């Protein structure tokens, strides 16, 4: 098959063409899986997340509108939402983890810098997030990568939700400034 755009593949999927689904798997499953591993830290759950994402793509519920941005952003947003659902389900079974347990799990207590930044292949945002304070990194980690709500994060840290919100706001503002700076350089 010649190169079909992701948007075209999605249209063909709506017509029930399984070859289009397969093509989307070959093209993006690695990204979805990698995201799921980062998010869940668990291979079994990651496999389930990939499965749910592709089931969703195959169902007519998933409607991609190419006018609204890149396909991979859309796909990752969907992946994240599904990951959140899966992780919340797991947490319901396990009960709420305390922030200390979470720190232990992630080795944060020993090495604050390592929360977000553990890889060698860090990309842009990773280098940027090093500019964040540890509490700012943590709020992003818990919110974006662990799927906790602002309210839950506030409860874990024993802080008012307003504090968590303004910390997030500052963190995103810092990241944004950095990204804009990089964009202007190029």
């Amino acid at each position, binding site marked *: 098959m010649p190169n079909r755009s992701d948007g075209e593949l999605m249209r063909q999927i709506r017509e029930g063409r399984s070859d289009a689904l397969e093509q989307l*798997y070959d093209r993006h499953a690695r990204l979805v899986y990698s995201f799921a591993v980062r998010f869940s830290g668990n291979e079994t759950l990651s*496999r389930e997340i990939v499965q749910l994402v592709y089931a969703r793509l195959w169902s007519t519920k998933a409607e991609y509108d190419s006018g609204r941005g890149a396909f991979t952003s*859309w796909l990752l947003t969907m992946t994240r939402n599904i990951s959140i659902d899966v992780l919340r389900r797991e947490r319901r079974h396990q009960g709420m983890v305390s922030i200390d347990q979470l720190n232990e799990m992630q080795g944060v207590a020993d090495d604050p810098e390592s929360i977000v930044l553990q890889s060698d292949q860090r990309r842009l945002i*990773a280098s940027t997030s090093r500019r964040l304070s540890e509490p700012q990194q943590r709020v992003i980690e818990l919110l974006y990568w662990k799927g906790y709500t602002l309210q839950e994060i506030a409860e874990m840290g024993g802080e008012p939700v307003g504090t968590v919100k303004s910390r997030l706001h500052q963190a995103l503002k810092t990241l944004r400034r950095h990204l804009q700076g990089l964009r202007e350089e190029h």
Partner: protein
Amino acid sequence: MDNRETSPCEGLIEYLTGEGLEMQRKRFERHLTSCSTCQEEAILWHEVWDRLADDMDLRDLPADLKDEVLGPLIEKENAEPKSMKRRTASLFESRIVRLGAASALIIIVFLSGWLMKDLQIQSIGKETSIETPSSIETLFQLNAERSNGKFNDSKHAYGVACLVRSDDDERLVVYVFGSPQTRDGEAYQVWLWKGGKRTSAGTFTVGSSGIGIMTLPLSHGIKDIDAVGVTLEPDSHSTIPRGPKMFGSTPQSSSGEV
């Protein structure tokens, strides 16, 4: 973030992170249409937010994952002529097993062993859409409305509204479990809320098992349902709810919806 506590702009972060009740989101959406500050912020946040995903390592896909993922979704294209529609319990069961991709419903079905039997009876005895679903996804969890006192004898009443997609159609399927039996012509009625309007989606009865199922073939725009409610009506002819509310949807989870 100065003085945001009192400003309507306050809701921006919750909105962007997808938190808050549907009502709050709607309220903020209205604010967003008229507040250029929030609009600009929202666009910029999205740019940053999307980039957060960059902070991950690319992993190698497990070699067996492709078959596991795509197999259940596309296998029936390769085989299964329509004439082979069978409705034996074992087929239904094995199909459900292979449907690993599906959703909470499957988990619910398996957790509620007693339910299996009932579904089989349904799928054998009636023309339901359940026998060959290619995907099932939960649209809404339905919570029992305990304040009406009807569930005092039932600790585990709940319901699910799912989208069931099979070969050639899509159906909304509403299940309730642990719900009071209908008597004397009573009927449960399903109501859909869409764009502030309520429509009836149909009725069903509940037997001594406490289980009720209603399916509605979908020919049009079901994707925009905002909420689902179930009432207990004195008969099956209500055009507006007359009886007590029995189940209501929790705010819709945003999964997969962008």
